């Protein structure tokens, strides 16, 4: 397969950041060559008629589960890349909890190469912090960083690095490598057997509760460890009102801490559990209205940096079972943008520049990607996403690109549509179809 990394395309009739009158954006050899009106495309260039769409920098997802290697029945790097391109993403970070675990450079380099060969989205493997995600011994972060994948983010996501001494060492070691540690904040002793947010709904439904304190106690502990290590820690899928307050406090102290929130924690709450449908089971669990509202406000005011999908495909049999036995996680790549529109843009919490910030710029900055999340300016990468803010669509799991179907949004109407995705001047998705 040929692997062009650059391309040329004329994107006509779009509004960068949703501002002002429509313009044309010409990308030549992967970079924005000209922004203006009535531009003409050079020979051989692709052409997109934007139809007045909002033009944003391509989205960057810090939290994706692509399941390859090990569970290719639920997702592959190819199917996940397709879902990402269709969702407007130009870079995704593939979590390390594969089988075998991505705790060595053989795996991480292989994931990176496979993603590059597919060419729909930049697939950046996330390395494990500890060998086998076992929480006992640091993985060879330096080797993974030095490999062709150049791993720059490490996480045991799915499990918390709960041993405080090990977490301290991980942060200190990461500082010397200039890489990022992303923590799945969950004190495991507080979540033994937990399958739902601990609160009135779980009490009523008889589901073992996952208390907010299990997340918050790790968030504040790691903030303090990051402060003393003098390095950054990134909090995965922040889910509680208390976490927001702790992040705000830590920021006020000058601690380098960043955080992401998932679309499902912005949109859904634990009232969904009343049917016991395991499609609503996720970790951390769906919480209460006040958490949802605090998370939205925090994303608006920057206390939470960005949106990350925690796209977690699961096979049908892992969801068509008792709630307690079901695997936690939901699909997210193709529904993230419209949910941000629904929960943030439409209520007036974010404008389109804000969407660019939380979906693209901040995640790229947090992890240090030089060629993503860049301004829409001449000379910058032609890595862009087009959004029709008024074209609604109805979610059907069968129609999503993922090999799995575990979307909690089945039959839900999404208010906006990603109409095209461009990676360094190459169209990767257009009108709901991937192009490669």
């Amino acid at each position, binding site marked *: 397969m040929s692997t062009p990394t650059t391309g040329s395309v004329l994107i006509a009739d779009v509004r960068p950041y949703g501002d002002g009158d429509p313009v044309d954006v010409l990308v030549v050899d992967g970079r924005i060559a000209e922004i203006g009106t009535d531009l003409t495309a050079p020979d051989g260039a692709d052409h997109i008629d934007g139809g007045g769409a909002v033009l944003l920098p391509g989205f960057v997802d810090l939290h994706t589960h692509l399941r390859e290697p090990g569970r290719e029945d639920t997702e592959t790097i190819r199917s996940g890349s397709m879902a990402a391109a269709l969702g407007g993403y130009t870079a995704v970070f593939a979590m390390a909890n594969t089988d075998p675990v991505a705790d060595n450079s053989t795996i991480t380099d292989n994931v990176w190469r496979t993603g590059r060969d597919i060419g729909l989205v930049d697939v950046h493997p996330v390395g494990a912090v500890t060998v086998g995600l076992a929480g006992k011994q640091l993985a060879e972060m330096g080797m993974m960083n030095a490999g062709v994948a150049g791993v720059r983010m490490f996480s045991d996501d799915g499990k918390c690095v709960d041993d405080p001494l090990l977490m301290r060492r991980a942060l200190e070691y990461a500082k010397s490598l200039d890489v990022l540690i992303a923590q799945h904040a969950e004190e495991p002793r507080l979540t033994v057997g937990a399958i739902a947010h*601990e609160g009135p709904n779980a009490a*009523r*439904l008889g*589901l073992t509760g996952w208390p907010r304190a299990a997340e918050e106690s790790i968030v504040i502990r790691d903030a303090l460890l990051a402060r003393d290590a003098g390095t950054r820690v990134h909090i995965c899928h922040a889910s509680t009102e208390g976490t927001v307050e702790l992040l705000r406090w830590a920021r006020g102290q000058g601690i380098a801490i960043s955080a992401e929130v998932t679309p499902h924690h912005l949109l859904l709450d634990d009232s969904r559990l009343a049917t016991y*449908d395991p499609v609503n089971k996720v970790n951390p669990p769906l919480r209460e209205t006040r958490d949802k509202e605090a998370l939205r406000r925090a994303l608006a005011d920057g206390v939470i940096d960005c949106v990350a999908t925690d796209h977690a495909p699961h096979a049908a049999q892992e969801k*068509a*079972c*008792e*709630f*307690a036995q079901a695997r936690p996680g939901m699909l997210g790549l193709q529904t993230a943008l419209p949910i941000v529109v629904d929960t943030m843009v439409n209520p007036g919490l974010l404008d389109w520049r804000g969407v660019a910030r939380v979906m693209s710029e901040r995640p790229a900055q947090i992890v240090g990607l030089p060629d993503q999340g860049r301004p829409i300016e001449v000379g910058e990468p032609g890595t862009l996403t087009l959004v029709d803010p008024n074209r609604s669509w109805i979610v059907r799991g069968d129609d999503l690109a993922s090999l799995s179907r575990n979307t909690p949004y089945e039959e839900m109407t999404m208010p906006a549509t990603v109409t095209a995705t461009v990676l360094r001047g190459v169209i990767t998705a257009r009108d709901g179809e991937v192009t490669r």
Partner: protein
Amino acid sequence: MRHLLSTQDLSVDEATELLDEAERFEQALTGREVRKLPTLRGRTVMTVFYENSTRTRVSFEVAGKWMSADVINVSASSSSVGKGESLRDTVKTLHAAGADALIVRHPASGAAHQIASWTDDGGAGPAVINAGDGTHEHPTQALLDALTLRQRLGSLDGRRIGIVGDVLHSRVARSNAHLLATLGAEVVLIAPQTLLPVGVSEWPVTVSHSLDAELPTIDAVMLLRVQAERMNGGFFPSAREYSVRYGLNDRRLALLDDNAVILHPGPMLRGMEIGYSVADSPRATVLEQVRNGVHVRMAVLFRLLVGTDSPGTL
């Protein structure tokens, strides 16, 4: 009513009607030569128990047989369950095999809800009766407790009922708290905080940590079983301390009103949550509860299986 999954789904009218009908069944069976009604002839009722329970299963089986239903006990250990078949496939098979009702006990909360949805079949699927799902609900136990209390106390309206012990893990407590409140009783949950769910404040109950303080004010006390695994789970310091603080011993019996009723869903741990002789006190209702259990389950089967050929009948 299509299924009985939770007492929280029952209106006061529906709950009262079930209790009334349970009493009608008792009357219909009193003084008879033949203890069998033709009511459910040709109907197939399957009990599907993924946890052992002699008393509940037998009670449902007797209720079904007295109404001439064909009752089939699907043993979770001897069926394909042991071969790793999913719950969903198992219940879909039982539906296809002709079950008109599935009576389900399962260790996972919500299993009965899920089974009802998996076998719905556009409304043509079996009635599902929750015979205990995880730490969620056990509605027929609550109905028989309510019937026993109503018979002993005359009415539940305004009566103060104490539920003592491991509310957190008790499906009996959940079902009872909601049903008794629906029927107009004041429910007070009496337990250490460790055995109360977070979020209990939104239940239609009050909460107390002192059994001694509550006993003089209540018309009935329901003692929940303390399961062995809780004793080692750090929910309270020791069995001895639990028994001292929350056991209904002879001294505490004297604090109760003379007409107060003592309920225990069984099996009892004498000497732990209930004093040895207290369990045999005339105020205890253990055997009445068992008798009422059969009548309540007849009423439930009747309610769910009669008239089900008419589409749209609730």
